[in-house]
C-alpha cells in the first residue's frame, strides 16, 4: 500500500514537472493541477492512511475505537482541494484570456519589451 502510494507520487510529480516545463500555457496549468493533487496526497498521507475505522465515538463508549483513522489530514486535504480548485479555475480563465489575445507562450514578453540599446533598458510607454 505504502509502496504503491509512493510510486504514484513519484510518477505524478515527474509528470507534473514535465508538463509545467512545457512551453504551452494549457499544459502549464494542467501540470500545476497535477502537482496540486499530489501535494494534497502528501498531506493526506501525513495521516497514515490504511485504517478504515471511522473516528466517531460510539454511543456509550468512553473514547475513540482503537486504530481509528486520523480525521485531521482528511479535513485539511478537503480544504486544500477547495482552495486549489478555485485557483485552478482562475488560472484557466486567465490562460484562456491570454491565449485568445494571442499570447506567444514561447516568450510571454508583453510586459517585458526588448531593449533598443545594448546597455540601457527600453523606455516603456504605458
Amino acid at each position, binding site marked *: 500500500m505504502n509502496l504503491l502510494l509512493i510510486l504514484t507520487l513519484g510518477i505524478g510529480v515527474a509528470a507534473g514537472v514535465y508538463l509545467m516545463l512545457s512551453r504551452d500555457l494549457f499544459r502549464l496549468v494542467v501540470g500545476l493541477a497535477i502537482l496540486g493533487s499530489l501535494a494534497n496526497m502528501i498531506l493526506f498521507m501525513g495521516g497514515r492512511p490504511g485504517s478504515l475505522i471511522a473516528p466517531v465515538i460510539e454511543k456509550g463508549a468512553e473514547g475513540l475505537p482503537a486504530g481509528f483513522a486520523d480525521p485531521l489530514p482528511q479535513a485539511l486535504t478537503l480544504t486544500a482541494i*477547495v482552495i486549489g480548485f*478555485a485557483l485552478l*479555475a*482562475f488560472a484557466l*480563465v486567465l490562460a*484562456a484570456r491570454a491565449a*485568445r489575445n494571442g499570447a506567444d507562450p514561447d516568450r510571454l514578453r508583453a510586459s517585458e519589451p526588448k531593449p533598443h540599446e545594448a546597455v540601457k533598458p527600453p523606455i516603456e510607454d504605458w
Partner: protein
Amino acid sequence: MNERLPLLTNAAGPLYWLLFLASLWVLFRGHNAPGGGFIGGLLAVAASSLLATVRGVAAARRRQWLAPVRLAAAGVVLALLSGLVAPLAGQPFLTHIWWGGLSTVLAFDLGVFLAVWGALTGYIYPLLEEEASPS
C-alpha cells in the same frame, strides 16, 4: 434555448427545482448527519449551471437574488456574524451557541451554502457566456 436537446430543455425546469430543493434538504440535514452547507451549495451550483447551460446564463442569474460575487460575500458575512455572537456572550470567536434546536451553526452553514453557490456560479457563468459568444 438549445434546440438540439428537446428532452433536456423540457426537463430542465422541474429538474432545477428538484436539485435546488435537494440542496436545501442536504443543507439542513447536515445538522446531525452527513451533509451541510458545502455539499448543499455544490448541489445548488449544479442546479444553477444546469439552467444556465439549457436556458442561457441570464435565466440562471435571474434565479439568484444577488450577483454571484455579492451572493458569496453575503454568505461569508453571514458566517462571520454567526461567529460574532459568541464574543458578545464572553466566549472565543466562532464558538457556537445553541438555543434548543436552533443554533448559530445553522447560520454559519447557511453562509457557507451561499458562499459556495455564489463563488462557483461566479466562475461558471463567465465561462459559459464566453462559450456562447465566440469572438
